[in-house]
């Protein structure tokens, strides 16, 4: 079901972009094409938290990032949201749990999601995401890695996070089937920094009246920068 929605929106936004420029259409089109590529045979799929995990590490490897919370929100925007949550509830997941994660677990049980090769997330996000990652890893027989982000910033905690990045980068490269290439990571960081600077300029432009962007356009651009 999710794949059909992704295909429909991808085609619709591609057609729309041929007629006129639209940030919203460009955002949806890029994002949905990315998620669709996770269904391709042979794709190396890494479940992650697109807007909370350093995507530069994944960009340095030949893997497809997939965020089941974003995918769940796409499902929730259709008539399938409630039945998908009901699927999770029928398997014992309480209605008191986060609706994102009930949708995700229901979608996984209905085989709506692409098959993961590895699961990554961070601790500073929320308890539920890390726990759902753990459950999805168990249900799919894959490995789940947590980036634990200490609350205090000091030399020890920076060292701890750096070591975790090294371990995660190594595992992502293994999934991709090639050694981790630090030059590719440096490139990814450079691109990411360039987009950050552009994004700051965009935010600065929002201070003007009239502004060249409206809220939804700037939102689309911001999320496009984080996820792609």
């Amino acid at each position, binding site marked *: 079901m999710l794949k059909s929605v992704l295909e429909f929106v991808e085609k619709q936004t591609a057609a729309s972009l041929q007629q006129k420029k639209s940030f919203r259409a460009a955002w949806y089109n890029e994002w949905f094409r990315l998620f669709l590529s996770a269904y391709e045979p042979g794709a190396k799929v890494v479940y992650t938290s697109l807007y909370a995990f350093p995507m530069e590490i994944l960009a340095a490897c030949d893997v497809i990032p997939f965020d089941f919370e974003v995918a769940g929100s796409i499902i929730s925007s259709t008539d399938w949201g409630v039945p998908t949550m009901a699927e999770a509830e029928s*398997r*014992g*997941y*309480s209605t*008191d*749990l*986060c609706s994102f*994660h009930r949708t995700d677990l229901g979608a996984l049980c209905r085989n709506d999601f692409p098959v993961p090769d590895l699961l990554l997330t961070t*601790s500073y996000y*929320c*308890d*539920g995401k*890390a*726990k*759902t990652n*753990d*459950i999805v*890893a*168990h249900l799919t027989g894959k490995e*789940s890695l*947590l980036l*634990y982000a*200490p*609350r*205090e910033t000091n030399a*020890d*905690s920076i060292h*701890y996070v750096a*070591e*975790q990045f090294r*371990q995660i980068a190594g595992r992502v490269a293994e999934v991709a089937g090639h050694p981790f290439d630090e030059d590719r990571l440096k490139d990814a960081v450079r691109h990411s920094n360039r987009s950050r600077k552009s994004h700051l300029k965009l935010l600065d432009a929002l201070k003007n009246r009239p502004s060249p962007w409206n809220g939804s356009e700037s939102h689309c651009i911001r999320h496009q920068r984080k996820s792609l």
Partner: protein
Amino acid sequence: MRPDQGHASRRIGYACSYVPVEIITAAGMLPYRIVPKPAPAEADAWIHPQTCFFVKSLLAAALRGEWSQLSGLVLTNSCDAMSRLADLIREYAGDLPVIFLDVPKKRDADSIADFSSRLRNLASHLHEQYVDASGALSADRLNEAIRRWNHVRRLMAEVFALQLPGNPEAKASDIFRLSQEGVQSDPLQFVDAVKRFLKRAGSGKSQGHGPRVVVTGNAIWDVAWIESIENAGARVAVMHTCVGDRNYAAPVAEDTSDPLGALAARYLLKSPCARMMGIRERIQHLRDHVTTYKADGVICVAPKYCDFQLYEIPLLSESAGVPFLAFENDYRPDNEQMNARLEAFLEMLVLGGDHAQERA
């Protein structure tokens, strides 16, 4: 180094079994586990009503000033709600000093090293506050505290062994009371209490031949939970909970040159609770308990809105290998609805298994 147990101002409160009590003891203070009471709704004005009842109960107690005699309170990021509890107590609960301890959710070598550095900060803070404003807690003081608490753990292992099939029986509700006493006592005095308990063990009458159940979950505080299960005709084979065997298992390495590293390793590597990553390991621990204690069923008890436990219940339930009953509660265990569910579950165990013949 021996704390004055009778004087509340020597107490340092804590609310999670991931706080190394040895460090508090080494600073000459009494680690005093704060416990929830059945009045969580009093905290609704300060925190969302759908927050875990454990956190709401503790917040309500703090707002009532119940811990004003404590010298300090060590809180951890046991979960998101517990982290917010620290913020709220700092903001609204008067002058109670809150020390926040960041506990990793992973168990690898890097996480142990990181946790060790957090423990160093905690030890330095407590030393400066309660021992000497200059210097740091010595390895000798820490090693002595480790030996004291290990003595408690070894004796408690003998107590929990009473619940193994074939050993002299002791009532689980009595063991539960003893376990609770241990998290609010000076280790030297508690050792005497455990020795007295062990001396009496086995002299009590048999607990009968009802089905044996593993009680798992997290912050179970009211002995009425255990008594309800016993009164319904079951035998609690083991309490795999925050103050049950998870709290007392696994001693700390003694007399090392790096006692904080030894503490970090013990606390992160002990039998994990639901806050830690690794559902596979949690499932395995539950299965091991079912096998070791020859249990006929599992009863999982968790406070209402405990996310960590709620996420795990479906997998634990289907993997336990025996019938599984999950209870959510608001720290009011003695109610008709709960008793009815409990009796129905135990009836199912009796009808579904031949445990009576096996145990006879």
